[in-house]
């Protein structure tokens, strides 16, 4: 179980309340696919995900981005037991969707960069460090059922 100080909880919530799930979510997968094109392997049923223009305008990707951030909201609200909160999600990603867990880490990096675009200097090194601690806990929880 990850331990959080009061200050860390404040920082994480502070970052998260500045994130507009619809706005950031809509562009999240576009960023991930453009930066890490090989993750396209999961999106065979998503229509055109092959050109930058298609990726940026794909409604299924936009919808999925919002779903991912809604799940992240769950993690923010369950900071003391993200592992428990994410157990079935982890299992689904392992057994059904068969996602390489390295891609949780890659997506987390994209989330941080999207947030950096929004928060700019407010994402100070200290704030980023705390946010990173949180995202690492989320990624670990997503990996937890991979056995």
């Amino acid at each position, binding site marked *: 179980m990850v331990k959080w100080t009061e200050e860390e909880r404040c920082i994480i919530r502070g970052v998260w309340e500045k994130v507009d799930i619809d706005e950031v979510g809509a562009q999240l997968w576009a960023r991930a696919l453009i*930066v*890490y*094109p*090989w*993750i*396209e*392997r999961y999106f065979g049923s998503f229509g055109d995900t092959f050109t930058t223009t298609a990726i940026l305008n794909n409604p299924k990707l936009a919808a999925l981005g919002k779903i991912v951030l809604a799940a992240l909201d769950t993690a923010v609200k369950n900071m003391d037991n993200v592992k428990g909160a994410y157990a079935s999600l982890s299992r689904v990603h*392992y057994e059904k969707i*068969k*996602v*390489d*867990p*390295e*891609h949780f880490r*890659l997506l987390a990096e994209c989330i941080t960069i999207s947030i950096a675009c929004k928060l700019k200097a407010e994402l100070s090194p200290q704030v980023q460090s705390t946010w990173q601690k949180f995202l690492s806990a989320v990624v670990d929880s997503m*990996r937890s059922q*991979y*056995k």
Partner: protein
Amino acid sequence: MSLSAKDKNTVKTFWAKVSSNGEAIGADALSRMLVVYPQTKTYFSHWKDLSPGSAPVKKHGATVMAGVADAVAKIDDLTSGLLSLSELHAFTLRVDPSNFKILSHSILVVLAIMFPTDFTPEVHVAMDKFLAAVARALSEKYR
């Protein structure tokens, strides 16, 4: 961390000794990888049997080591030598490049197990550098 002339020689000499065991090395390395790093199983959902030493694992292990043998032969220019393999991994297989390190480590473990006296630290470093260079060449076409 590019391969020195000494590294290349060490790799070629060691490979000459062990290459006849290529299939066994590949089968064991892949078997271990799937058990020790279960996340790698996500790339093999099309296989009926992922257990150590199973038929698909053995067959694929041989394929992988044939690729390694090819890389040894092309050690002086891995980037152009492995171009079509890179394209295969980047566009068709889309294996996350982080997995190359995992498989490389698994291969090194098997080499240590099978050739404990030959797999000296000097051979270890040369082989590790070589497999890392192969991984780099394979990653070339990804983006």
